[in-house]
């Protein structure tokens, strides 16, 4: 598995999708969706050890473990939202693509809100400390 494999898969799938678009646009969309899924699965199998290394790096920088976990979760949500919004946009459904992106943003906000609360708490504590000192 190398970059050549993935490049070949995408080019051949694009060729097949363009070939089928004239007769059956729905098959063209199916090829687009399944190519995205296959390429993502192939990439994620390569990415898993990299994420483990990154987590070890964060741990050695003595950052709390949960920050890295939130970062990776955000990456996963973004990938899924991007996949579905690209599929919708290829099919010509811009409204649904926007909804998928909106869903991704909402869930990212839900995920990141505790971190933001922590930053706000820290800022408040710093300001109170400055007044007291």
């Amino acid at each position, binding site marked *: 598995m190398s970059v050549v494999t993935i490049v070949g898969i995408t080019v051949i799938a694009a060729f*097949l999708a363009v070939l*089928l678009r004239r007769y*059956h646009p729905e098959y063209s969309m199916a*090829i687009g969706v399944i190519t995205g899924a296959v390429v993502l*699965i192939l990439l994620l199998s390569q990415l*898993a050890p990299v994420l483990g290394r990154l987590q070890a790096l964060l741990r050695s920088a003595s950052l709390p473990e949960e920050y890295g976990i939130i970062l990776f*979760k955000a990456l996963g949500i973004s990938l899924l939202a991007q*996949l579905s919004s690209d599929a919708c946009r290829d099919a010509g459904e811009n409204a649904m693509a926007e909804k998928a992106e909106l869903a991704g943003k909402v869930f990212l906000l839900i995920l990141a809100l505790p971190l933001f609360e922590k930053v706000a708490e820290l800022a408040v504590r710093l300001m109170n400390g400055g007044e007291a000192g």
Partner: protein
Amino acid sequence: MDVDLIFKIAAIGIIVAVLNQLLIRSGREEQAMLTTLAGLIVVLSMIVGEISDLFRTVKSVFGL
């Protein structure tokens, strides 16, 4: 390898397109429509399996 799925879907699409043309030329439009529908259902069932596989992989890799 699941790359074969792309070729399978393309093959199903081409076969359905040819059958569609043949059936329409011979004046059986309802059967042509049903052929298209059957091909679409087969393709969608293949896609659903692959997408659930993708979701499981993303969940396990990113810990969602």
